[in-house]
């Protein structure tokens, strides 16, 4: 099993199943090892930072400062600056948390599961998908903390550490599961990402002219030198990580779904949640990868590495997961009717016709109707339309979380305590701000680290094949 990385090039990937014989190569022909290294490495090692990067970064950084402002004000005043209330105790913060965590699933999924399934096309996109995962999980991880009333205490009371109060976290709470799941996920993703980076960083180290860059990449690469003995263990480690990440990535959104499913609230308390959340996470994750990949390959002229075939495959994954998500919605509605439980049936009716009905129908449009276009190859190969669909799905998945969190809470058991939720400007500022944080980190990543795994692309080239025995 050892050399899955190497074997990838022997395996054309999903395309063969659906379109036998017509699959274009994963990497455009005509590249050799050196050109691959230079093309990807030069993006990072160039002395001239492109203007487009500077402008983009400044915009993203500006938006990130909205987050700083919003969180600063939040700490001064308290969570009352948001629109939450009783009965709707959770609002944008948890919606955003689930949304970001969902997005954070694509990277590890691409790296781990597609690796195990020997999908060689993952190679060009796994690096920045993993980076995206990390940044999304960072954005997500922030929310459970800042949404608490006393974040300065939540920051460490949620962790088990010996203390003078002799107290411990309450391990029956899904929020504690979240703490462990999200922090484990962040750690493992970081390890996975970093492990993948080591050989590439070593390439940059040797390629760099500037002393600082040499030092920086030298430290990061830990003295990687490409020894066959090292590669041997490296591949084992990488495959093991992939094997561990796969159940982990499934567990994370499962645990997130338990935040809801463990409760008693109609619309939350349902067994469909774990699979439906995981599918939704993959769905939104791929949508976000597309949203990012399309402009990036344009801006850095990486179409030879991130080819139309990549986009096509991702579109297919979206279609598949979109159908699962759609099935989830239908199941919820079916449960509402079939359970004959008055709270459940009211909940689904209220979703469809209550004060938040527009968001429900918008989400149905975004997440069920829109992906149906992906059945058509023409749509899948039309990059602008694909880009728009990916954006719509991103919005749709956010709306899904809005519908789950808000409509379930705002009208639960006792009609006397029913209420409404209206987000405030600070809710929006925090949300938009995390988009800024996310893109800022992404910009920094693109500028500092190779956005495509160089060594894996090398291994994809035909000349990497060993023919001798």
């Amino acid at each position, binding site marked *: 099993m050892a050399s899955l990385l190497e074997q990838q090039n022997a395996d054309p990937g999903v395309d063969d199943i659906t379109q036998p014989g017509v699959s274009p190569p994963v990497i455009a022909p005509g590249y050799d090892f050196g050109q691959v290294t230079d093309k990807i490495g030069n993006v990072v090692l160039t002395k001239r930072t492109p203007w487009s990067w500077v402008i983009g970064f400044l915009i993203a950084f500006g938006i990130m400062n909205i987050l700083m402002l919003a969180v600063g004000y939040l700490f001064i005043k308290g969570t009352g600056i948001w629109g939450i209330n009783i009965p709707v105790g959770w609002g944008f913060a948890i919606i955003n948390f689930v949304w970001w965590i969902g997005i954070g699933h694509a990277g590890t999924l691409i790296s781990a599961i597609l690796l195990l399934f020997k999908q060689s096309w993952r190679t060009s996109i796994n690096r920045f998908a993993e980076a995206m995962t990390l940044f999304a999980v960072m954005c997500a991880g922030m929310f459970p903390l800042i949404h608490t009333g006393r974040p300065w205490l939540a920051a460490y009371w949620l962790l088990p550490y010996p203390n003078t109060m002799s107290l411990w976290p309450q*391990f*029956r709470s899904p929020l504690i599961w979240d703490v462990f799941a999200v922090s*484990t996920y962040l750690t493992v993703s970081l*390890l*996975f990402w970093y492990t993948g980076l080591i050989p590439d960083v070593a390439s940059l180290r*040797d390629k760099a002219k500037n002393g600082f860059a040499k030092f920086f990449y030298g430290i990061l690469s830990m003295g990687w030198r490409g020894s066959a003995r090292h*590669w041997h263990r490296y591949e084992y*480690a990488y495959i093991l990580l992939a094997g561990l990440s796969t159940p982990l990535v499934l567990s994370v959104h499962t645990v997130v779904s*338990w935040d809801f499913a463990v409760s008693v609230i109609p619309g939350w308390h349902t067994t469909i949640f774990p699979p439906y959340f995981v599918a939704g996470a993959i769905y939104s994750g791929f949508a976000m990868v597309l949203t990012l990949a399309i402009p990036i390959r344009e801006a850095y002229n990486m179409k030879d590495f991130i080819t139309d075939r990549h986009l096509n495959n991702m579109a297919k994954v979206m279609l598949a997961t979109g159908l699962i998500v759609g099935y989830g919605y239908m199941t919820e509605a079916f449960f509402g009717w079939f359970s004959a439980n008055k709270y459940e049936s009211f909940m689904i009716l209220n979703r469809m016709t209550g004060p938040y009905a527009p968001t429900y129908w918008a989400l149905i449009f975004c997440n069920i109707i829109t992906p149906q276009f992906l059945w058509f190859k023409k749509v899948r190969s039309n990059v602008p339309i694909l880009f728009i669909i990916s954006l719509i799905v991103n919005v749709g998945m956010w709306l899904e979380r809005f519908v789950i969190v808000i409509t379930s809470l705002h009208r639960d058991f006792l009609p006397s305590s029913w209420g409404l939720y209206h987000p405030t400007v600070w809710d929006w500022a925090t949300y938009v701000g995390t988009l800024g944080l996310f893109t800022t980190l992404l910009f920094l990543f693109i500028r500092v680290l190779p956005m495509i795994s160089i060594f894996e692309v090398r291994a994809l080239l035909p000349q990497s094949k060993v023919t001798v025995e």
Partner: protein
Amino acid sequence: MKPTGIYGVMAEFNTPDELVTAAHKAYAEGYRKMDAYSPFPIEALDEAIGIPKTILPWLVFFGGLFGGMAGYGLEYWTQVIHFPLIIGGKPLHSWPNFIPVWFETTVLGASLTAVIGMLGLNGLPLPYHPVFNIDRFLDHAQKDKFFLVIESKDPKFKLDSSKQFLSNLQAQGVWEVPN
């Protein structure tokens, strides 16, 4: 062990095929303390230079086992023994509720072991290494060329003959690697 200022001799090849062929030949020649360098993993080299199967999977297994036991142990001790609190009418040992954390700590333990173990077994971090003394290696080893190094530690190593041996393998160049 020959007290020598030489780490070994290094040969450069253009393609993976050449490297694998050369490695096979060197192994056949009786060299054991040698290493091949490539800008991407080449599985054929494992056999060619005789790399034993790593114990990493076992380490990871025990890492995961330890993580899981530590996680569940923490839950059990804190919730049942140290500060038993009555929560929601459930027993103190509500094991179904303890599963998620147990699972996460298992994965965490295994993953940390996998990466730290890999680095440790590889002897990394090691920023300085004799092979980097060769300029050709520096410029091309992580990019597009393939190298074979016979180390001076090898009992069969003799500077001149080993150098000659490598040159005979149609290497693009052969260098002495100073320590």
